[in-house]
């Protein structure tokens, strides 16, 4: 009897598993990236394929949007396409939205292919091809503000000005001062226990599974309790690139400490820079940005009232007003 039951059970088991969905296949738990879905708007350069959209007159001055993360995407920044006070950015500017290397819906890569040097080369390629011979404006949120600063520092002649929407620490030394507040790694934190418990079911062993698992943190309000977010914040994302997030962070670390310095070349530029802070962020909010203001020779700071770190998504009209104000002042210089 037992000798008959075993093959029957084994056959049933194989049949059941064969009918299961594949957690590693994009499209099931996470959306496909541009290399897997040709219908997505995209552009290929520097050995990768990027999720890319541009709006506005092709001969207009260019704004390049830089999303946060590293690893996140530009979905939330698209809220800055809306009209405020009867005008839209893309009425007067060519506005480029894209997902950075290995991030959002852009092609995935191994960690070795995700470095700050490549990120710098990617943005440089983009600047040269969307705005040949004319400096661009950079608008970066969070990590995107850090990325914009690094580019401004390395290529001051190619940047007309920037709006840095609550950028993270521009140097490793500043990061060390606030690192405990950036991610809540309290061993009793609910989001952390939820994440680690879930990894016994779903291993982060490929891009699709790792990116999906990361959302347990991204969607948990207690992962960054000091950032002023609220549970009902209407924030949206497409997909988070975990390997890009980890690789770019690792590229700026040595011996477990932050060692990057995105400010080394800022003395060479007088490009107008506006830093924008949220009023509720207790970690990298107004007080922190006031310190970062000192890295720039031609910069000011504006605070968005009653907002948390995701203000470009939750307060797009207020965000657009401070962007317009800065562009109107500096863009005509």
């Amino acid at each position: 009897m037992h000798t008959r039951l075993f093959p029957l059970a084994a056959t049933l088991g194989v049949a059941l598993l064969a009918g299961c969905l594949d957690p590693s296949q994009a499209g099931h738990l996470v959306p496909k990236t541009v290399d897997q879905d040709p219908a997505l708007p995209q552009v290929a350069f520097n050995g990768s394929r990027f999720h890319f959209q541009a709006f506005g007159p092709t001969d207009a001055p260019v704004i390049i949007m830089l999303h946060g993360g590293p690893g996140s995407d530009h979905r939330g920044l698209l809220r800055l396409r809306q009209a405020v006070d009867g005008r839209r950015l893309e009425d007067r500017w060519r506005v480029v939205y894209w997902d950075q290397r290995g991030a959002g819906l852009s092609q995935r890569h191994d960690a070795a292919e995700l470095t700050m040097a490549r990120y710098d080369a990617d943005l440089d390629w983009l600047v040269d091809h969307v705005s040949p011979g004319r400096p661009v404006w950079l608008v970066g949120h969070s990590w995107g503000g850090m990325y914009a600063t690094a580019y401004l520092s390395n290529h001051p002649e190619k940047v007309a000005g920037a709006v840095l929407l609550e950028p993270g620490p521009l140097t490793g030394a500043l990061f060390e001062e606030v690192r405990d507040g950036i991610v809540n790694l309290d061993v009793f934190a609910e989001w952390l226990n939820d994440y680690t418990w879930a990894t016994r079911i779903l291993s982060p062993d490929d891009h699709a599974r790792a990116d999906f698992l990361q959302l347990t943190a991204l969607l948990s309000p207690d992962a960054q309790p000091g950032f002023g977010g609220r549970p009902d914040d209407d924030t949206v994302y497409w997909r988070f690139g975990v390997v890009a997030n980890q690789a770019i962070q690792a590229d700026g670390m040595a011996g477990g400490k932050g060692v990057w310095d995105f400010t080394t070349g800022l003395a060479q530029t007088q490009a107008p820079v506006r830093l924008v802070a949220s009023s509720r962020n207790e970690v990298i909010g107004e007080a922190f940005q006031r310190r970062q203001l000192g890295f720039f020779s031609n910069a000011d700071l504006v605070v968005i009232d009653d907002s948390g770190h995701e203000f470009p998504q939750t307060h797009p009209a207020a965000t657009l007003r401070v962007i317009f104000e800065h562009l109107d002042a500096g863009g005509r210089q």
Partner: protein
Amino acid sequence: MPTAQAASVQVGLDSAVAARLGYHHRLTLGGWPHGLQLRARLAVPVATPDLADTRAEVGAQAALVQWRALWLLAELDGVLLNTRNAAFAANALGLRAALLPGYRGGRWGLLADLAYEATLAAHLRPSDRYRRKVYPQARDGWYGHPGGTWQLGVRAGVRLGPVELAARLGWMITEQGAPHLPPFFGTLGLAHAF
């Protein structure tokens, strides 16, 4: 015929700050030195208790080899894992196998702990929050072999009459060798035989 029963409790960091309650029932088998220890265990995270996050195990431990006080024990457990978090809920079926070579004397023991756990299949349901904010087309359903974990560590125990104190400590990596978060586990336990 059962010769011993025990109840156990274990607390510590094992994929989360968790507590595990167990019932153990030893069967003597003719000539088999360790007998066959059947067990049922239930673990829940205790940092933020949530009964949607549970782990139930039913299995057995037996000695494969014994020479004097040196043993090679083997364990096999069926595992039912449940979770619910901001991104998804899941119920999963898995198998855990472990080899425990080492010293096991009358009063104390020290064993290496080499374990592999495969999640064979999981029924995953992306949350409404995930669908609303991230990916509306995410698919509910049974997913095949979504994960696996290696645990490499040591177990130590001291017996004081009917009570045994035990500690487990070690490293965890995913099936393909990536470190877990956190990359280690460590628990303290107490078992009382009756």
